[in-house]
């Protein structure tokens, strides 16, 4: 379990665009938080910052440890990031090699690594896929392999970037089921507002690199004015005027 605290977090691209502006967050250990905002709001930048993958100004503390060039390698041992595009995470010739990649840095021996990998594959219901090449799997299966890489690490902090993107309803349901079983602090950046309602007890609305509001999803997402102001929409399950025709 990891608590995340950020103080005065700012980040700008080299082109001078401010992607994050003085972000202050305190996500308690074991919490499940959704980052919601329009495209370009800074959601992905925030995830990358928490993972120490971009240089930001301000402070990030993970479970009390300040994220710094010295501490980042150690902190990453308890942390996973599930990328938006599964193909960015899967670069080994076989599924099991992908799932086990980097586990040796956690101080495991070969036997343990393999066990962890197989266990993780079982959790995502991909037993028997060990020696297949991720490249030949369906999109939904590749997403599952990515999840397995995180599960194998048993991270206490998992960051998800658009985890339901491009999944069909069944694959999305599968993800939700797995997500519900996961322990640890979970942060997800998403456009899928129904997903937020279903899985997260807390949400952070972010726009223009700034935190607009933090609170319960149901309370925030129902506010039509707020949603429209930030180029979002009230999700159908909360809306009283569905846009359905025919």
């Amino acid at each position, binding site marked *: 379990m990891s608590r995340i605290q950020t103080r005065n977090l700012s980040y700008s691209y080299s082109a001078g665009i401010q992607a994050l502006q003085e972000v202050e967050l305190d996500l308690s250990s074991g919490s499940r938080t959704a980052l919601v905002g329009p495209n370009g709001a800074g959601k992905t930048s925030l995830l990358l910052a928490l993972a120490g993958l971009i240089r930001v100004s301000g402070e990030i503390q993970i479970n009390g440890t300040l994220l710094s060039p010295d501490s980042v390698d150690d902190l990453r041992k308890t942390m996973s990031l599930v990328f938006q595009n599964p193909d960015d995470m899967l670069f080994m010739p076989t599924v099991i090699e992908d799932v086990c990649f980097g586990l040796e840095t956690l101080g495991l021996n070969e036997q343990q690594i393999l066990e962890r990998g197989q266990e993780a594959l079982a959790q995502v219901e991909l037993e028997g896929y060990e020696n297949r090449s991720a490249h*030949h799997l369906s999109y939904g299966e590749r997403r599952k392999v990515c999840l397995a890489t995180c599960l194998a690490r048993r991270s206490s902090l998992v960051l998800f970037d658009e985890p339901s993107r491009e999944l069909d309803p069944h694959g999305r349901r599968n993800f939700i089921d797995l997500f519900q079983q996961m322990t640890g602090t979970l942060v997800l950046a998403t456009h899928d507002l129904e997903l937020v309602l279903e899985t997260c007890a807390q949400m952070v609305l972010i726009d223009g690199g700034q935190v607009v509001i933090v609170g319960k999803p149901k309370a925030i997402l129902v506010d039509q004015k707020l949603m429209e102001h930030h180029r979002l929409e009230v999700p159908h399950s909360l809306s009283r005027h569905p846009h359905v025709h025919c």
Partner: protein
Amino acid sequence: MHIPDGFLNPQVTLVSGGISATVLVLTLRKVNQTLKPEQIPLMGLLASFVFMIQLFSFPVGVGTSVHLSGALLISILVGPRIGFIIMTVSLVALALLFQHGGIFSLGANTLNIAMVGCFGAFGIYKLLPGKRLALVLAGGLAGVISAILCAVELSLSGMLDLSTALMTMMLIYSVTGAIEGFITMLILDFLLKVKPELLSHYS
């Protein structure tokens, strides 16, 4: 290694430029005869790929980093002629957009990198028996040829005397050439496992 502008004298610039231009025109003519429409976007994307990997140095520890020219790899996948065109285009772009190598030394660089890499390394690789070790050998031997060309160009331009140039360039190019061959082998191993249909010529 891309020779910048300023290091070659006019004679070497004109002669190497002339040779490269002639080979390019002949290759284009030959390729145009058999070119399939679907190969046109492929050549563009592979040029982008080659351009990228020549810029993308990968640290391998102890302060050293490696990068490929890609000539041997591309030639194995799409043949040396198309490979040569792709390599030449990427050299033009490297010179224009990244100042890797000059514009007037483009002829020499095309000779040393694209021509030797595509026709030389690939030809040697085809002649050698065996496949995996042949890649390393072909890379290394092509490196030696590049070294000789580069040394001759620089010494004719009065930059280095021939024997020193030969020794230095031989050392640099044969090592980087062999590394190129070796990494090419690793890449082909990966491709064989993941997408073997790309390697119908290789086997």
